[in-house]
């Protein structure tokens, strides 16, 4: 009985912690949605692009920290180019048009990353082992991966940082005003372009961190894109415009998909992780279309 409970706890904790990785991807998405009401479908591709560039730079013998900074600059450049080449010409277009454009952007980023760095699977060693932490294993009989815990801590730190940025800084105030009403914000002198650039760069940095966490676990490879797609049901559950929503959505998806996989999966030959989050999202949509923390959508003729 105790061992069953412990096993359940283990599955739950592993699910919650891997959920924080979904949250990290979803976070980048929310940042952009909050500031520009754009569904950035390319966020998954940005994760892949960022981490592949990072690993590629490291292969040239560039040290970890330098490669990290260089990749951040690269992601800022991507943000700049996106603002200039994609968003600005499409200003005031419908949401669906922007969504299509970001799907295109995603393909461009995926293709570019692979054309430059190749398609082979790469290992990324962060110096953190994907194995149980001995201390917890000895004292609590729970086997929890050190990498999961690190990812959880990193995600928490980023969320706190971003929340502080949004709530207490002048930039954050600008961001919120743009999110509320871009036209009004720009008419009182808030530089829309700078805000957009800032948001896309922040999303790029979040993408890099998320990619590093995923890459350390599953290898840096194209399959990361599919994992990043799972951020979409996370967003539906959490709401597109809410940072806490992204976190809780990620935790819910992470925990429920692991529990479903472990306890129900064996009856169907496994692999239900692949679709369970989406079906979960559908049920959520039927019940609460705006998500847990999203703003209620009101549509008028």
């Amino acid at each position, binding site marked *: 009985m105790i061992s069953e409970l412990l096993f359940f706890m283990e599955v739950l904790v592993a699910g919650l912690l891997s959920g924080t990785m979904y949250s990290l991807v979803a976070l980048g998405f929310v940042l952009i949605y909050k500031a520009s009401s754009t569904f950035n479908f390319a966020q998954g591709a940005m994760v892949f692009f960022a981490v592949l560039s990072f690993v590629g730079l490291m292969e040239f013998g560039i040290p970890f920290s330098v490669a990290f900074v260089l990749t951040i600059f690269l992601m800022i450049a991507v943000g700049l180019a996106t603002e200039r080449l994609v968003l600005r010409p499409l200003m005031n277009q419908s949401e669906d048009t922007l969504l299509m454009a970001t799907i295109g952007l995603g393909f*461009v980023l995926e293709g570019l990353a692979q054309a430059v760095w190749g398609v082979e699977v790469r290992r990324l060693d962060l110096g953190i082992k994907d194995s149980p932490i001995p201390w917890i294993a000895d004292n609590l009989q729970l086997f929890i991966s050190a990498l999961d815990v690190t990812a959880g801590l990193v995600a928490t730190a980023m969320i706190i940082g971003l929340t502080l940025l949004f709530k207490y800084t002048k930039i954050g105030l600008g961001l919120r005003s743009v999110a509320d009403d871009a036209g009004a914000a720009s008419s009182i002198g808030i530089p829309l372009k700078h805000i957009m650039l800032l948001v896309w760069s922040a999303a790029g940095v979040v993408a890099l961190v998320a990619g590093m966490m995923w890459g350390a676990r599953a290898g840096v490879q194209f399959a990361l894109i599919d994992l990043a797609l799972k951020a979409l049901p996370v967003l539906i559950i959490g709401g597109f415009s809410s940072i806490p929503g992204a976190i809780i959505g990620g935790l819910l998806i992470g925990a429920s998909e692991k529990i479903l996989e472990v306890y129900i999966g064996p009856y169907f030959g496994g692999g239900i992780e692949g679709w369970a989050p*989406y079906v979960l999202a559908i049920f959520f949509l039927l019940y609460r279309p705006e998500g847990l923390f999203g703003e209620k959508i009101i549509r008028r003729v």
Partner: protein
Amino acid sequence: MKPVFMTFTRGDIINFIVLMVLGFLIIPMTITNGYWYSSILIPWLCLALAAVGQQIVMGYAGQLSLGAAGFMAAGAFACFNLILRIPDLPFVGALIISGLIAAAFGILFGLPSLRVRGIYLMVATLASQFFIVWMIDKFGWFKNYDTSGIITAQNIEIFGKSFTSPINMYYVVLVVVAVLTLLAMNMVRGSAGRNWMAVRDMDIAAESMGVSLLKTKLEAFAISAFYCGVAGALFAFTYLKSLEPVAFDIKLSFKILFMVILGGLGTINGAFIGAAFILLFPVVLNFIGNTAFHGSIDATIISSIEQVVFGALMIIFMIYEPLGMAKLWESIKSKIGFNKKK
């Protein structure tokens, strides 16, 4: 939903006759190389049919869907099982029933469209993509307990005659695609199409004018999935000649989405133009890579470049010509004075 043949103009009928003569007489007379049929024309027609399905749900009814490949998989495996388990069933019958089975999936996964739209709906349709492919993969019955993962498709037999050579298969595909495309054109011009477009342009307004959203949206999903299902079955039986769930992964869904968007949303022509482009562009790119650089460029790099070009084109079309290549073609035609007589 009564057919409205009246709305076809004389130009349409002439176009139709020209295309049929081209498809049934001129192409078979001029092209004798089997490669053209089995690697270009057959996949083009199959994918264009799926794109017509995608066009109905997305271009006409305005419902963002990313599950086309899932419905294609449903159609393909339904066809395989029908032929396998019901020996007396003719191929065309199996094709229609597999389309209907796919349509049932379409209705099921179209249900969320009653509550949500845009990207929310897109995520919901992703569920169909992943679920259907997973289901086929995990339950051995669908694959007739074949463990190799790849099942050879049965021969196509119609009225006791076996259609195995590329050109014969081409005829089968062409007939099915021509009939279904004609039907689709008829539908989008009739009351069904008008309802779809009303819902696309403003669903609340449409509803307040008495268009039933429930019926219209689910109808669009069902018909779209029917087209995708038939296309999937044809795709598996005439092009792949095998059945494997991986052939219908999310990438294929994206491809079909691209066909519709680059080809031009809300036009049946656009589905065919887009399919031709998406299919031919990699062939051309490979050809350039092989001849100009003598194969010194890695195939993976070429496919990466292909991705970049598709993505960039998507952005460019969204900015400059959201109505896609079909519109581009129309403007070129009117610029050179081809359309003057109306």
